[in-house]
């Protein structure tokens, strides 16, 4: 059975100055099965974050509905963990207390909270940093803590909105391997938004490509690589071929979005100007 069903979800935003509303997301449908790792690609502004926020319950769809295990989602909840692109650790809490945040909300005994937190902190490789405040951590370490915080809460599924988007290339590749390693052990259902095609293919077992704004899922491809995946598959012929195909798909949408939303570089001018 599907764990998540997105059914005809669209979102339009009322404009501030009373003009026409902007359609950010066209009616979109997507089903995620248990243990799916779905990556979503698309040009910026196509509605990826909007879609993910609606699934998280942080935003309401204009039409359509989101079902989690068959029940309609009506707000945010601990059953859908989220990792954001921006650094969202609570600056007044150290690493351990950040990871304990959701556990404390559930009223777990302190010793139990710490035990769970400890194991997830170890899994993201941050043992020894429990007492550090977020400002004392690098970006990559902050995102690892955010991942541990989301996982420690034991969500049904994980939503990730370009979680590594602000990291440098090397750190990002290490983070991909770390997340993949954790996923291979748990196989938690994941919805992962990115604009990095490499990342989408390496991490996902299904890749979705969204169209230019207003977005919809216009292309889907299964990723055939078995788990556990080694980073060297990135240079395999099959990987390169899939990546090339997706590059074409995404490129078409990026072109469409720039042609639609920016001035032409060389405006046509009359041939004979006095």
């Amino acid at each position, binding site marked *: 059975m599907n764990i998540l069903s997105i059914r005809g979800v669209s979102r339009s935003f009322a404009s501030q100055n009373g003009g026409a509303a902007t359609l950010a997301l066209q009616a979109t449908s997507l089903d995620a099965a248990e243990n799916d790792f779905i990556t979503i690609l698309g040009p910026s502004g196509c509605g990826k974050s909007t879609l993910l926020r609606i699934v998280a*319950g942080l935003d309401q769809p204009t039409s359509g509905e989101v079902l989690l295990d068959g029940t309609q989602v009506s707000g945010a909840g601990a059953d859908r963990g989220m990792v954001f692109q921006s650094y*969202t650790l609570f600056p007044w809490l150290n690493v351990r207390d950040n990871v304990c*945040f959701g556990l404390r909300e559930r009223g777990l005994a302190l010793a139990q909270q710490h035990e769970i937190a400890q194991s997830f902190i170890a899994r993201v490789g941050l043992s020894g940093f429990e007492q550090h405040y977020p400002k004392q951590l690098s970006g990559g370490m902050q995102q690892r803590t955010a991942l541990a915080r989301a996982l420690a809460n034991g969500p049904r599924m994980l939503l990730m909105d370009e979680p590594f988007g602000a990291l440098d290339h090397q750190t990002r590749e290490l983070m991909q391997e770390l997340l993949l390693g954790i996923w291979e052990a748990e196989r938690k259902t994941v919805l992962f938004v990115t604009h990095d095609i490499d990342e989408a293919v390496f991490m996902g077992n299904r890749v979705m490509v969204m169209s230019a704004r207003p977005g919809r899922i216009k292309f889907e491809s299964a990723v055939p690589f078995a788990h556990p995946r080694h980073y060297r598959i990135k240079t395999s012929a099959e990987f390169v071929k899939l990546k090339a195909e997706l590059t074409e798909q995404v490129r078409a949408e990026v072109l469409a979005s720039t042609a639609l939303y920016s001035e032409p570089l060389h405006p046509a001018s009359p041939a004979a100007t006095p």
Partner: protein
Amino acid sequence: MLGVSFFVGFTGLWALATLGGFVSKTFLADPITMVQSGWRLLTEMGFAKDIGITMWRVFGGFAIAAVLALPLGVLMGAYKPVEALFEPFVSFARYLPASAFIPLLILWAGIGEVQKLALIFIGSFFQLVLMIAVVVGNTRRDLVEAAYTLGCGDGGIVRRVLIPSAAPEIAEILRMVLGWAWTYVIVAELIGASSGIGHMITDSQALLATDQIIFGIVVIGVIGLVFDFAFKRMNQRLYPWAQLGK
């Protein structure tokens, strides 16, 4: 160090002007006379008690204002309808000059302690409420959303995100407004009081005792400075995370 040298320079200039005979003693006492009469005030004339009374007024009025302003400010910052209800009135009340209430308060409450506490309350409460509401309202949206996805409800958001996130800035606001409360209490004591630092100053004015007046002013300044410093230190201790990356 630079700050201390300015104090020294300032005192030196004052000593030069007064001891050098450039300024009449009736208008401005010299530093040595000031210290001497200050000592006399403290040891023989019970000025220490005046200082104690003034301090209790400041902290009493300020504590009442803070205890009431904190919940109201937090609620206004957290909930739009609460803000819509109170914000216009509080904004208006904030611009009412507290000192202008003194005659009215004397009519209502006489020149006793209630009048002093009420004045400090009026002077600090509305400022506190508005500034706290702004700080709480400016809490990072993404932190609130992260807390929601971790299973927080509305009450949890207020308790576990809005308040801790705003706490260091709220503490700074309290520190600042406490400084203002000092000026209100002195004004209240200058106009109608039978004790306190301000009362001593008006009494000294009748006696043309500028040495005592200046001593009173210096005492006010020193106490203000000491508490400001202690408050700042306490905030740094309480919120070490807010110091990071500064």
